[in-house]
């Protein structure tokens, strides 16, 4: 077996790649194992590891002369060499079933999840449909608090059509951003030359001003929609009357 490898440190992860070549004259089942002091994070599709991977390495059957590349990540510090060929045994050319079992093809559920398209509705379709704490609590690997923060940041940058009115904190931030834009636009309205020059250079040139103008127009539209919705909700909230006393008597 020929093996060459590389290992890079990227942020908090070690990224290991290697190439294995079967230099023998018969098909061989090769087992490549990580030498890193930490769990192997194998390549995944649909959250399911690719065939042949397990917690310590990968197993694959290589035809004579075949070269195969593998890669994985790990949070452990890099060591050299990061991988080693743990075993390489000749395989009977006829024993395809055995080869398949070693590749993890024996579990149809995992095969289906990995190989068929993901049925999960996109995050954007779900956003705003439920409070974010429900999402985080549910078993959603992408709904980590960190990811939610990123999404909020994104909303602020682009003012997407998705409803940014989630948590009151997000609402405050959005109002602050809108206020800053409106203030800048106000300073440009009927401004003298010196002020205008300062604001234009702060906004990033004339293109920046054009963009600001568009943004402020869309802000105005959204603020009006928000005002109408808030007023309607406030009216409805004012008209409700939960009969607490009556319910207490019944309970």
């Amino acid at each position, binding site marked *: 077996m020929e093996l060459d490898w590389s290992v890079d440190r990227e942020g908090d992860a070690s990224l290991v790649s290697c190439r294995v070549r079967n230099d023998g004259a018969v098909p061989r089942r090769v087992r490549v194992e990580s030498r890193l002091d930490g769990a192997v994070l194998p390549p995944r599709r649909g959250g399911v590891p690719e065939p042949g991977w397990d917690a310590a390495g990968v197993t694959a059957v290589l035809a004579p002369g075949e070269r195969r590349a593998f890669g994985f990540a790990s949070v452990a510090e890099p060591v050299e060499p990061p991988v080693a060929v743990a075993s390489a045994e000749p395989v009977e050319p006829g024993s395809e079933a055995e080869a398949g079992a070693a590749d993890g093809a024996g579990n149809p559920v995992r095969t289906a999840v990995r190989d068929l*398209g993901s049925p999960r509705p996109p995050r954007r379709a779900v956003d705003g449909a439920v409070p974010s704490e429900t999402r985080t609590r549910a*078993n959603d690997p992408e709904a980590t608090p960190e990811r939610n923060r990123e999404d909020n940041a994104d909303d602020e940058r682009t003012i997407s059509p998705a409803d940014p009115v989630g948590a009151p904190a997000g609402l405050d931030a959005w109002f602050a951003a809108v206020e800053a834009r409106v203030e800048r636009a106000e300073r440009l309205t009927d401004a003298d030359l010196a002020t205008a020059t300062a604001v234009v250079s702060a906004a990033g040139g004339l293109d920046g001003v054009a963009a600001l103008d568009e943004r402020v127009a869309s802000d105005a539209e959204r603020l009006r929609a928000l005002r109408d919705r808030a007023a309607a909700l406030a009216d409805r909230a004012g008209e409700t009357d939960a009969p607490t006393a009556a319910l207490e008597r019944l309970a």
Partner: protein
Amino acid sequence: MILAVAGGKGGVGKTTLAYNVAAELDGVAVDADLGMADLPTGRGPDLHDVLAGAADPIETIRAGPVDVVPCGRTLAGARACDLTRLKDAVAALDGERGPVVLDCPAGRRADAGVPLAVADACLLVVSPRAFALADAVRTRELARELDAGLVGCAVNKVTETPPTETIADALGAPAEVVPADPRVERSVAAERPVVTAAPDSEAAAAVRTLARRVPQRADWAREDTAPF
């Protein structure tokens, strides 16, 4: 015994067939259509909760004329589902409650594939229209790949004599004609399975024939050969 009722195309009557076959088998109908559930729902935990690891499958059984495991209606719930949990959940239902009939979603994504992968056998529902057959054939291929033995197919909502033999040949399983019958259409919403609401109807006879083709034991259905 775990039976998947699949069909590829939407709107061919998978849910209705699943509900009525579950009635005849005295089993539990599971709404496995995670994104567009349509079996009766109720209060309490549902399949979304089970697949999110938040509920025990047994406590989701909702008793009725046909026992049902309902499915949530929200996109957030569908998004939180981990399909790899379906196998254990369905096995628990099978052990506790007897025959499990899975109402599968349309399409060929993982949410349609995993029920076929966990099922011992499957039943295909096809519309008598020619364009629907292609979808059924593709679903049949998927079922074969995922090792769900095809026990039969239902040609559903039939108004004129359909080319039953052509369909049976294309799918490689006996085809049973289920005539268009308002009592069948209503059966799920009214929770009145046709085998008890109209036992003498042609539709009820077809449902009984389909149910008889479902083997009692799971290992029989796992045989690679077609049952005829």
